[in-house]
């Protein structure tokens, strides 16, 4: 096991930078999720770490070796692919044995290692089957097994759960998490599903447009998103973002809407917006931090309900606010109807403020 270090990693396709100056360090035994929308460069980054693509610039270190020019097989990595990539003409046993045979290990050692891995993953009874005779979950376990037998320094996983159905995905999610804990494995895990990243990873690297947006623990990324992209990508339902203007009313800083209402800011928040590059500011709030009132209370702003979505233990309400849609979660007992006028109250301690021009989070100076 070892750490993985990416320094100024670049990957160009023509003049398009698929991966643009990405830097991060995966510590020994850490589970890092690369997360972002399609085309954000996360899979390319993983393939660069694996050595399946040549880099355009920068350095990748695995352990204490710079591996830039090493073949995938010499990088001491194992990879798990989205559609498992099991050899269809080989049995499960032969699939697990393949990387060891390529390493020219003696037969009895191969046999022992395959049996061990099969035992860990509970697939001993499947060893004589062909991949097509297995369910999706079983195939995924075999793919994990093929990575496991190698005893690699780093496990690279490319959306390993996205081909599974929803129920199995939740189950395999905890199995992979367990796998990580039991083996103390270093894992780099690519996913487009922020929920997977948040639930499994020690750290997450949020990527967009080839750029690393934020690299931190899921809790930090959730609580302190650095910009509007991260804020809207992490969390479900997404953080509501309402573009507003800064104004001063009676010597107090307020956010003002074209709809004609003002939202007074606390002193701390007023200091944050003072640092904005223009008067345009975006107000961000997560669904659970917004209170919904049936009548006006101090500091609340008027809004109109768009949809009401009961999910059982939480009812999600979408409401229009200054041209944007705001998500609010309510207890299932709440009775709200579409098109009803309501008043929303924001928790000044927990709102996020973003610069309307740069889209970066505003921090207290």
């Amino acid at each position, binding site marked *: 096991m070892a750490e993985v270090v990416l320094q100024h990693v670049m990957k160009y396709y023509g003049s398009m930078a698929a991966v643009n100056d990405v830097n991060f360090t995966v510590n020994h035994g850490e589970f890092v999720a690369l997360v972002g929308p399609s085309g954000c460069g996360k899979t390319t980054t993983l*393939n660069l770490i*694996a050595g*399946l693509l040549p880099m355009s610039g920068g350095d990748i270190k695995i352990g204490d070796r710079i591996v830039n020019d090493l*073949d*995938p*097989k010499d990088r001491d*990595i*194992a*990879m798990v*692919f*989205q*559609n498992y*990539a099991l*050899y*269809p*003409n*080989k049995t499960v046993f032969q699939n697990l044995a*393949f*990387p060891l045979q*390529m*390493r020219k290990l003696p037969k009895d050692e191969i046999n022992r290692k395959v049996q061990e891995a099969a035992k860990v993953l509970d697939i001993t009874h499947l060893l004589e089957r062909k991949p*097509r*005779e297995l369910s999706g979950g079983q195939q995924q376990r075999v793919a994990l097994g*093929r990575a496991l037998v*190698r005893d690699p320094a780093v496990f690279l996983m490319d959306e390993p759960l996205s081909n599974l159905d929803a129920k199995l995905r939740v189950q395999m999610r905890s199995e992979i998490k367990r796998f990580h804990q039991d083996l103390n494995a270093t894992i780099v895990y690519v996913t487009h599903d922020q929920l997977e990243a948040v639930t499994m990873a020690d750290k997450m690297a949020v990527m967009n447009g080839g750029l690393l947006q934020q690299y931190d623990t899921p809790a930090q990324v959730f609580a302190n998103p650095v910009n509007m992209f991260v804020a809207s990508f992490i969390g479900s339902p997404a953080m509501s973002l309402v573009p507003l203007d800064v104004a001063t009313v009676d010597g107090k800083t307020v956010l003002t809407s074209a709809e004609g209402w003002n939202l007074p800011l606390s002193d701390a928040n007023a200091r944050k917006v003072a640092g904005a590059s223009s008067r345009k500011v975006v107000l961000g709030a997560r669904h659970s931090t917004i209170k919904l009132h049936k009548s006006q209370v101090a500091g609340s702003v008027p809004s109109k309900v768009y949809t009401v979505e009961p999910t059982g233990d939480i009812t999600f309400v979408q409401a229009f606010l200054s041209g944007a849609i705001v998500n609010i979660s309510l207890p299932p007992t709440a009775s709200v109807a579409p098109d009803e006028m309501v008043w929303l109250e924001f928790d000044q301690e927990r709102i996020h403020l973003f610069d309307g021009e740069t889209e970066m989070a505003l921090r207290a100076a």
Partner: protein
Amino acid sequence: MTTLAGHANAPRGSIPARPSILQQMWTSRADYLYVLPAIVVMLIVIAYPIYYTIELSFFKTPPGLQLRDKIFVGADNYTAILSSEVFWRVTINTVIWTLASTLIAFVLGYGAALALHRDFAGRAVLRAILIIPWVISAVAASYIWKWMYHSDFGIIGQVLVQFGFTDRQPNFIDNVHTVLPSLIVVNIWREFPFAMIMIMAGLQTVPEQLLRAARVDGASTWQRFWHVTFPHLRGVSTVTILLLAVANFNSFIIPWIMTGGGPSNASHIWITHIYELAFGRQRWGVAAAYSVLLFVILMALGYFYVRALSGNEKEQGA
């Protein structure tokens, strides 16, 4: 709600008895009507000729006689064929021609497809050039090669002489020993692009992730081919070989135009021989008997073809 659920379950208990096959045919009578014209045409252009050929194979048709005055001879035509020396000569030629053409064309096409699958400058041009033999007319190709093999003016002979491999121009297609291999070379040249195209299409379907997985697992280029690509192409390879085999078994143009089966039957294969018997010597009955034998052999090949195809489906469907 409960009554609704009970209602929805009701039909499950009382599945009606399966209608008899006649009833089924009657309910879909319109469908039969739609395919009727096609069936009639098929009967006229396929079934009747097959029947007539089988019938004719039991008759003798002396050249002086009208075809309708044919004389019934039982299985004489068959016994005559099987006991004739020419039959065995032609059969051996056909086997050599089919096996050599099919296997060598397949291996060459396979190799060309693998070479062209990699990305390099000029790949598209090279691919277009390699397909030329397959798209030009077989008749034209035969005449071109006939000239290239010519014993006085042929370019191949001249090159051999110039480079000192031989003193005088070899007589490729007028020599009983070299004529069949020479024709096989032309045939391979003409049909290896077909194998190449088939294998190239197959190569596009090799999952990229499998090749990457094999690379991470430490497989070399050759090992990736042997463990991933080759097994993946097994289905398309089987089909290609069978199609080539059937086409070669039925070859006519190249041997007929280049040599007409000669010299002394050395390049006769079944089809050219049947053609000569029927249209050259008017021995319709013997030619028909030959055709029936050929038909049986090709049906057997067709059976394997269908089995190979359905075998693939089973593998991919499961």
